[in-house]
């Protein structure tokens, strides 16, 4: 299976980061990062609070630009194209690189309108039955369809937090992204809902490339293929998840994942 994917996609890298640095004002939040993320793989980013992992995540869809007085240096290639090229249309980039946020944040609208929001603003569906179809597919993709199919017109905020987060995932995949960024998507959820989302991530990885920021070491170990450890804006270690947890090469990584630092 791995070999097939690699063969069909050249080197298999969906995202390549080259000498990427990011500044809040003069403060370097990310220092000259280099890494590649594989297609159809789940990459987990771990590290203590303030280490830059969320900043890095938001660099991948250029959401950091909504913060004033920030600056990016270096190159991030998505399918070989630099997303920081001035000619890139960020709204188009964000359609390809979707994002799920830390806290479930459905719009104060119906389940249907939440999922249909992206397709509507991007003009992906002519409306009517095509839109219904996208909404259904997206909710199925998020593993929520059977729970909500009879109440699509009720407020999304009436659902449980775990269901709300799956509405948000459905909303993200409704615009047909290639990459899904998840910023601690389970930190506001109970353990059962968390396992639900992790199962879902594994299924989504068949179709999408997933990058997840997590504070939960077990989650990274359970749910990801690759793990990157961030420390003070630097990428200390980036290897296959099994290896990094079994035999970390760096002292810092070992200290962090065994709970001695962080």
């Amino acid at each position, binding site marked *: 299976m791995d070999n097939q994917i690699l063969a069909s996609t050249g080197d298999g890298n969906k995202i390549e980061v080259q000498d990427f640095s990011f500044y809040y004002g003069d403060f370097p939040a990310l220092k000259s990062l280099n890494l590649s993320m594989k297609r159809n793989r789940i990459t987990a980013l771990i590290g203590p609070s303030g280490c830059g992992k969320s900043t890095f995540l938001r660099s991948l*869809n250029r*959401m950091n630009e*909504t913060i*004033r007085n920030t600056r990016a240096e270096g190159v991030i290639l998505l399918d070989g194209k630099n997303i920081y090229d001035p000619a890139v249309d960020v*709204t*188009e*980039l*964000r*359609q390809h690189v*979707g*994002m799920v*946020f830390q*806290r479930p*944040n459905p*719009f*104060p609208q119906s389940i249907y309108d939440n999922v249909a*929001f*992206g397709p*509507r*603003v*991007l003009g992906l569906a002519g409306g009517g039955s095509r839109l219904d179809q996208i909404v259904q597919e997206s909710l199925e993709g998020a593993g929520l369809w059977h729970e909500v199919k009879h109440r699509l017109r009720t*407020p999304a*905020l009436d659902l449980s937090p775990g269901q709300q987060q799956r509405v*948000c995932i459905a*909303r*993200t995949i409704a*615009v047909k992204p290639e990459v899904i960024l998840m910023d601690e998507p389970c930190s506001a959820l109970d353990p059962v809902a968390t396992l639900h989302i992790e199962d879902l991530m594994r299924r989504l990885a068949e179709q999408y490339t997933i990058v997840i920021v997590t504070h939960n070491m077990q989650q990274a170990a359970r749910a990801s293929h690759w793990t990157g450890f961030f420390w003070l804006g630097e990428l200390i270690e980036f290897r296959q998840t099994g290896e990094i947890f079994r035999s970390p090469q760096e002292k810092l990584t070992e200290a962090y994942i065994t709970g001695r630092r962080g």
Partner: protein
Amino acid sequence: MTRQQAHQLAVGLISAVAALVVIPIVLVILFIIVRGIGTLDWEFITTVPRSGMKEGGIMPAILGTVILTFGTAIACIPLAIGAAIYLAEYARDTRLTRWVRLAIVNLAGIPSIVYGLFGLGAFVLFLNLGTSIIAGSLTLGIMTLPVVISTAEEAILAVPQRFRMVSLSLGATRWQTIRSQVLPQAMPGIITGVILGLSRAAGETAPILFTVSAFYLPRLPHSIFDQTMALPYHLYVISTQVPDMPLSIQYGTALVLMLIVLSLTLIASIVRTKMRRRREW
């Protein structure tokens, strides 16, 4: 004094102050209702004044106030909401925008007679609109702008940032984000501000004194370039300028004006509570 006694004393004092504020207002309202209710009948609100305004109704003044309120809305709402969107969503924090904000706050505190004089100079004379509904509406509209801009901006800023983030992350443009998420969620606050602004405009005398009001015009205006009577000015005229004016007509007029303003305020609070119940962040 124990902490509990201190607490009770504080509650007592605050309640007394609140009563001090509320009781006179209630008394004024009751007083006007009691003195004016006898005058209020169908004839009073549907016929024109007769015999030098000492008999007949006040229909032209009521209609004039309604027309002016609509005119104010048309002049004020698009500008105010546009300015509020710009200030809340687009404007960076520069020296210029700080001055603009300061100006808006100050304009809200300027006495309405100053707006009246401004309207006279700018619209009636300079733009040569004459004393007309359009000049009066523009004057009232400008007077209402600062309040509506401020409340609308606050309502827009109160929409949680996370909804903007989600919308942008889905590939929406900033304008799509504003139009499809921010404005609908800010709408209860915006509408409240608009209605409260309009209710103030409906009750103002000074801005319309030189710009639109007719002393006595026992007919309906022919166009927006015509003069009209209006309730606040009519009340001023019959209370101070006409000798031997029957008190009943004065109180009746005051009651009608008060009811119009109160009903606008009531609509504002109904809109606010209704729409607030629907949104649950």
